[in-house]
């Protein structure tokens, strides 16, 4: 057996391996970017619902000014947040104050029975779900990517390719679980 053929064959195999690893990582990276823009779209969608909600609530519960202001502030800081961490934090704060705002409807039967309030409430809780699922998809993709570059022998090749690990978005799966149970 010609040693050159053997060495050549091994080299070709290694090249094929690096090639497929590289392509796999690139497509995962694109998937992560897509997942991130999905989160962004849903966060934006939620902030778009808030002005309508505030004006509806105002019509029935003028005195709850402080809570409405805190929602407006949380929305503003949500919109101005740039980094992923800041967005995750702002989004959680916004969820918190929104929950309080929706809870005061209990004290205002007319507000609670208002059609557009009911509709907004449905849309908001649906958007919360959308954010949660978009985040789940994003974090799944990140996990897949990180596992791929961390495992042997990919990790050796990646020292050359130099893909950095990706960051998870916001709350962990455990926190999400408790949120879901609260809906019951």
């Amino acid at each position, binding site marked *: 057996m010609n040693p050159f053929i053997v060495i050549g064959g091994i080299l070709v195999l290694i090249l094929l391996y690096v090639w497929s690893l590289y392509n796999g990582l690139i497509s995962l990276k694109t998937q992560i970017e897509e997942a991130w823009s*999905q989160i962004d779209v*849903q966060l934006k969608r939620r902030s778009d619902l808030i002005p309508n909600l505030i004006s509806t609530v105002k019509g029935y519960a003028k005195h709850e000014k402080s809570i409405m202001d805190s929602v407006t502030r949380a929305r503003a800081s949500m919109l101005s947040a740039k980094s992923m961490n800041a967005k995750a934090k702002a989004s959680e704060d916004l969820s918190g104050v929104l929950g309080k705002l929706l809870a005061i409807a209990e004290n205002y039967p007319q507000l609670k029975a208002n059609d557009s309030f009911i509709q907004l409430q449905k849309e908001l809780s*649906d958007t919360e*779900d*959308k954010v949660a*699922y978009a985040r789940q998809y994003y974090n799944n993709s990140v996990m897949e990517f990180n596992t791929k570059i961390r495992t042997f022998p990919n990790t050796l090749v990646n020292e050359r390719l130099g893909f950095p690990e990706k960051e998870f978005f916001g709350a962990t799966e455990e926190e999400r*679980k408790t949120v*879901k149970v609260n*809906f*019951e």
Partner: protein
Amino acid sequence: MTITSQIRSNVTRTYVFMTLFVAFVVLAAYVMGNALGYGNSWLFIAVVLSVISSLASYYWGDKMVLAMSGARAADRQRDFDFFTVAENLAIAAGIPTPKLYVIDDTAMNAFATGRDPQHAVVCATSGILTRLERRELEGVIAHELSHIKNFDTRLMAVVAVLIGTIAFLADMFMRTLWWGGGRRSRDRDDNLGGILLIIGIILAILSPIIATLIQLAVSRKREFLADASGAYLTRYPSGLAKALEKLSKDKEVLEAATNATAHLFITNPFKGKNFGAWFSGLFDTHPPIAERIKILRAM
């Protein structure tokens, strides 16, 4: 079995099934043609028709299945929970939102179809939409989206249309026998004609049964897998478990389902009433609900 190997096996099985179907129809046409005395003139027609229906089932299987079930397109206002839950879970699964349809029937059931995630359809009865809580509906839709993502729907749509075709052909043959009688060709030995006639009758009886068996072979295990991957999407297995509990209590038969489409649904739309009780276990298109619930509860 992992999801990737499941997808691969579904894709290969689809092609194997389409080929088998063509072979089966050609063989059946040969036997029946001879039994009825039409000779081999049927063969050419059978080849053309079976190839066409094979391809049609691949490309338009979803539309045919929908037409068979008489569904209407879902509306965001009217079917808010259905619509948004499907949107949300499609986000979680990383696939485009499927087209959504509703069958106006009080029986509780749902199915998914389409050749790939880009051409997918999820269909639910109005009964299931009104009687399930949102979290339970999520479990059901997640199950259906898993069928789509695993390419179960491609195989199942092809199977549904081709089984329908076989049933139709067998039915036609039986009618011809009944009304037309055997117009045997004169140059053929009467004995041989008689034997072929008997084989023809046996095949006509057997073919729907063979077809059903094929359809069962491809459908049972995947229900468990879809339950599991659905639970992975919602992170809330009890949602589907509760939904299945409600579904198992629902004794109503779904009128829109046929033998050809029964295996598509999340639970057996006939509630085991369509076949004789003595072989209902053999012919069940779905694993027992109690077992599925038990597994989901243990997750």
